[in-house]
C-alpha cells in the first residue's frame, strides 16, 4: 500500500485524501488554497503521489503533442473549402 502519513505533522494529508483531490488539482479545478498547499506539501515527501503526478503530466503532454499533429488531408481540404465559402 502506498498510503503514507507522517505522524509528526498533524496537518499532513495521506494518499487517500491526496488522490481524492488529485485530478481536480491537475486539471486546475482545485481552488481552495489550503487544500492545494496540503496536496503540494504531501507530494514533496510522498514518492508515490509525486510519481503519480509526473506520470499524469507526462501522459497529458504526450496526448497534446499527438492530437495537434494528426489531421487527414481530406479533412483539411474540406474545412478550408467550408471556411472559404462562409
Amino acid at each position: 500500500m502506498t498510503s503514507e502519513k507522517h505522524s509528526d505533522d498533524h496537518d499532513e494529508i495521506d494518499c487517500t485524501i491526496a488522490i481524492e483531490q488529485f485530478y481536480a488539482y491537475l486539471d486546475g479545478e482545485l481552488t481552495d488554497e489550503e487544500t492545494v498547499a496540503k496536496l503540494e506539501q504531501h507530494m514533496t515527501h510522498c514518492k508515490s503521489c509525486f510519481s503519480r503526478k509526473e506520470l499524469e503530466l507526462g501522459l497529458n503532454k504526450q496526448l497534446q503533442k499527438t492530437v495537434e499533429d494528426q489531421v487527414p488531408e481530406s479533412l483539411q481540404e474540406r474545412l478550408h473549402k467550408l471556411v472559404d465559402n462562409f
Partner: protein
Amino acid sequence: MNSHCGRIGDSSSWILQTFQNNRVKQIYQSGKYVKEINNKKQFSSLLDECTGALYQSALRLTRNAADAEDLVAEAVIKAWSAFEKLEDKQRFRPWLFRILNNCYISHYRKKIIRPVETSYNGVESDHETDDEVISLLLNQSDEFLSWWANPEKEFANKILGNDILTAIESLPEAYRIAVILVNVGGLSYDEAADSLDVPPGTIRSRMKRGRTLLQKALWQHGIDAGLIVSNKAQEYTA
C-alpha cells in the same frame, strides 16, 4: 421664385441626401464586409490551432474516420454561424469542443441508455463507490511504483501518443467524453458539466474514474507491448 428656388433646393437636397445615403450605405457595407473578412480570418486561424485535437476527439467519440470528419465539419459550420456571438475569443477552443460534443450527442446519444462503468477486473459494473475507486487506484499504482526505478516518467516517455488515444477510445462512454472534453478540449469542469447537463461533481467523479481507467488500460498496454515485463511486475506485487 421662392417656389422655383425651393424646387431646386429640394432637388439638390434630395440629390445630396441620396448621395449621402448611398455613401453611408457603401461605407456601412464596406465596414460590414471588412468585419466579415476579419471574422473569417480570425475564425480560420483559431480553427487551425485546434483542428487536430478536434478531429482526434471526434474520432475517439465516433470510432469511425468518416463519421469523425462529418462531425467536425458539422461542428465547424455551427461554430461559424455563432462565432460573432462568442464574446471571449480566447475561449474558442472549449467553445468549439462543446459544440462538437453537442453535435455528437444529438446524433449518437440515442444509442446510449446509461453509462456503463468498467471495473478494474474487466467486469462491467455501475456500483463502484469513490472509495473503491481510490483504493483500486492506490493498489494499481503500486504496480507502477514497484516496477520502475524512475517509474512514471520513463513509462510515459515510452507510451506513444497514439497508445493514449487508443486507451481513451476504450473508455466507457461517460468517461471517454469527460476526458476528451477536459483533457483534449480544455473545458473547465463547469463547462463540461454544462455541456453534458450534469452537475460539476459528476464531471469531477468521471474524471477521477476515467483517468484511473486510462492508467489501467495503459498499464495493460505496457505489458502487452513488452514495455513492462509482467512476470517481473508480478514478482513485486506478489
